[in-house]
């Protein structure tokens, strides 16, 4: 880092605000967006910034800020980045606008799959999907003569074999970090077993045989995991894979590209992508989407400009430049080998994450309550009963249950 480069950087950061190379038009209306900060959002917002007059907040606190910021009049941000769950509060509060007229005007390149419809009205535009699916070391499994695992029984059998053969110490990796991640693992398993979370009158319905079975499978898996599983998040599991420490994991599709990244992975080309293992009813995974919403509290002129800009960010050019950053829904995406797992899971009947107000409460209650079972402090039925009780307390406070 020479002094000259530092100076250059200063000059460039000044220059970047006036350059709109790589955009087909010049944006004249000031537009701001608030979204999560992962790679795909960076790619899209960078493409949008090329048109000028656009600033993006890629903020890890976006969940907390978005409902308030969109409720302000005029809205503090014109564009919001949401997923299955984070759409709910905006939808409930009515702070995002229907997009049908704008889709008709500027959305020639959108596919019907991208339009998120609530009661027939388009409320958001999806740009990518994500799902957890099976990733495994094809070399290790082939050496030991193990077939691609189709169910969790297969996974556990394979893990036992791998451990016995002593290839790796911990055959399975898992995003079991207490909180959101751990709850998500349970959601996968439980939906795979065909369970439902919320019943009549928003009452919880997880304390049943399917719930117990989901917990038991999770516990069985932890036998083959690094004992520090309660602190391991996606990035940690990804690193374990890259360093050749684990052989199988149900990991996010957005992480697939990292396995073949030569700069940091020691297992390039050795990780195969497959469908999430089947539960009794469906693959043990959920489909997630990420996309954009547009504030209700802005002028039509702003909405026009914001939507046009968003279309520029979600164009084929951006996708071809960032093909492996996500499983894009946008025209121009060529699904490669890395997207095979997500595709196979979807083909096997994976369901979307059942986002709703009560489910948000349930997810939090699960995230806080599950670790007691895995550490052995409670048995399965007590754990589930306590989670239901925690859910009820929170849901009553939120007004969802009488």
């Amino acid at each position: 880092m020479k002094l000259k480069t530092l100076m250059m950087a200063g000059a460039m950061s000044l220059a970047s605000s006036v350059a709109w190379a790589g955009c087909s038009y010049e944006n004249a209306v000031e537009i701001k967006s608030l979204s999560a900060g992962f790679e795909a959002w960076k790619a899209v917002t960078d493409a949008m910034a090329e048109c000028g007059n656009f600033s993006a907040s890629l903020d890890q606190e976006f969940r907390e800020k978005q409902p308030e910021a969109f409720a302000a009049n005029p809205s503090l941000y014109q564009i919001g980045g949401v997923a299955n769950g984070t759409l709910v509060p905006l939808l409930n509060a009515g702070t995002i606008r229907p997009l049908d007229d704008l889709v008709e005007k500027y959305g020639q390149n959108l596919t019907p799959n991208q339009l998120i419809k609530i009661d027939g009205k388009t409320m958001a535009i999806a740009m990518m999907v994500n799902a957890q699916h099976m990733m495994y070391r094809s070399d290790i499994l082939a050496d030991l003569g193990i077939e691609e695992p189709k169910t969790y029984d297969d996974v556990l059998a394979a893990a036992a074999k791998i451990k016995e053969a002593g290839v790796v110490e911990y055959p399975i990796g898992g995003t079991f970090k207490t909180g959101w991640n751990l709850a998500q693992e349970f959601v996968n398993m439980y939906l795979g077993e065909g369970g439902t979370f919320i019943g009549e009158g928003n009452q919880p319905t997880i304390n049943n045989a399917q719930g117990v079975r989901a917990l038991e499978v999770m516990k069985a898996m932890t036998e083959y995991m690094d004992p520090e599983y309660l602190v391991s998040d996606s990035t940690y599991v990804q690193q374990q894979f890259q360093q050749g420490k684990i052989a199988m994991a149900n990991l996010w599709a957005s992480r697939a590209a990292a396995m073949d990244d030569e700069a940091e992975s020691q297992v390039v080309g050795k990780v195969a992508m497959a469908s999430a293992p089947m539960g009794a009813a469906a693959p043990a995974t959920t489909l997630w989407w990420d996309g954009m919403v547009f504030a209700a509290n802005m002028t039509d002129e702003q909405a026009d400009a914001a939507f046009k800009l968003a279309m520029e960010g979600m164009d084929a050019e951006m996708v071809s430049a960032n093909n492996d950053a996500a499983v894009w829904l946008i025209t121009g995406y060529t699904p490669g080998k890395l997207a095979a797992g997500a595709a196979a899971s979807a083909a096997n009947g994976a369901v979307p994450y059942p986002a709703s107000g009560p489910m948000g409460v349930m997810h939090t209650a699960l995230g806080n309550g599950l670790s007691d079972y895995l550490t052995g402090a409670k048995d399965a039925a007590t754990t589930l009963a306590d989670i239901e009780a925690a859910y009820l307390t929170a849901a009553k406070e939120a007004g969802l249950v009488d």
Partner: protein
Amino acid sequence: MSSQVMRQPMGLRLSSAVFLAFWCLIAAFPILWITVMSFKSPVDAYDSNALNVIFGPATLEGGDGLSILDVLAGIAVIWGTFIVAIRMMPNMVRSYSPSGFQWAGWVIGALVVVVGFIVVFFSVLPTIMGVLNPLFGPLGRDVIGLTTEHYSTVWIDRGFSKNFQNSLIVTTGVVTVSLTVGTLAGYGLARSGSNLAFWILIVALVFRALLHSVLVAGYLPVFINSAEWLAPILGENAPTLYGKPFAVIAVLVAINQPFTIWMLRSFFQNIPAELDEAARVDGCNHFQAFRRVIMPVMWPGVITTGLFSFLLGYNDFLVTSLLLDAQNQTMVPAIAGMFNRETTTTDQVVAVAAAVSITAPLFLLVVVFQRQIVSGLTAGAVKG
């Protein structure tokens, strides 16, 4: 302890030296380690073998490295900077700055040292070493893998300098306002024996014990909607407080007030009340007495307290991450964002480099103000 009787036996001196060395190792180790990590390729940085992290074989393979000569020269420059900052600069500041403007002298002095160090270390030194290395044969060959690419990623590609500016604005604001308001209050509290003064102190102490997350969550909706509820008072130009550095400064100052007034109060209590009483006999009112008599002698305590305010403003995560948006984001939330994003291992090392970058100014601050901290504390800022 000059007298003969105070001389200590060899055993005690030896064990205390060993203890000190051990403590310094523990104190510095995590920081040293992340500094080492930040200069390595991702494969080396997360290697479980400590030697691989230190010597960075994969980084060296990538063609980035340092020779023994580079290392020696680098250490010399750092040591030189240290000496300049701790010995020469304070002396020069003392002898050259006009009285009453010492603080300006310190600011200028610190700036000169920083800029000088950056120029020498990143520009002059590599150039000289580029010429010298080939001349020295084996001494000039690369032996340790080391790359500065993560730093250039952070500062140039990721626009971290913008976050740095924001941090600077917020921190400067917090220190100035906090000291101005706090000095007045501290003086008032120290010179008043009323029960009200006592209760203000006690309530302040309880305030200090409050959970910041609860306070901050309360501000968020109010700040976001401020344009609406301020409109009746300020009309058209009512600002949205969310995302405004001055609003964050006000919050941080308020949160830090309890500690500030407690420290400054005990400090002022140690300045004999006779001093300002004498001034008042000469016809000054309280404010004049404060300005003429107290201000000239209060600097050690104020600098120490100011340092604590600085740390609070600079290191704050909770308030800045919630109340600022991306355009005004300071460094700490920016780094936390880097770590929490869906990241590759490379990104993690880049984030480590960012983490090291933000500790560098703190280093410098301590080097420069170290003596003032100790003398400020000695002068009684913490009488309890």
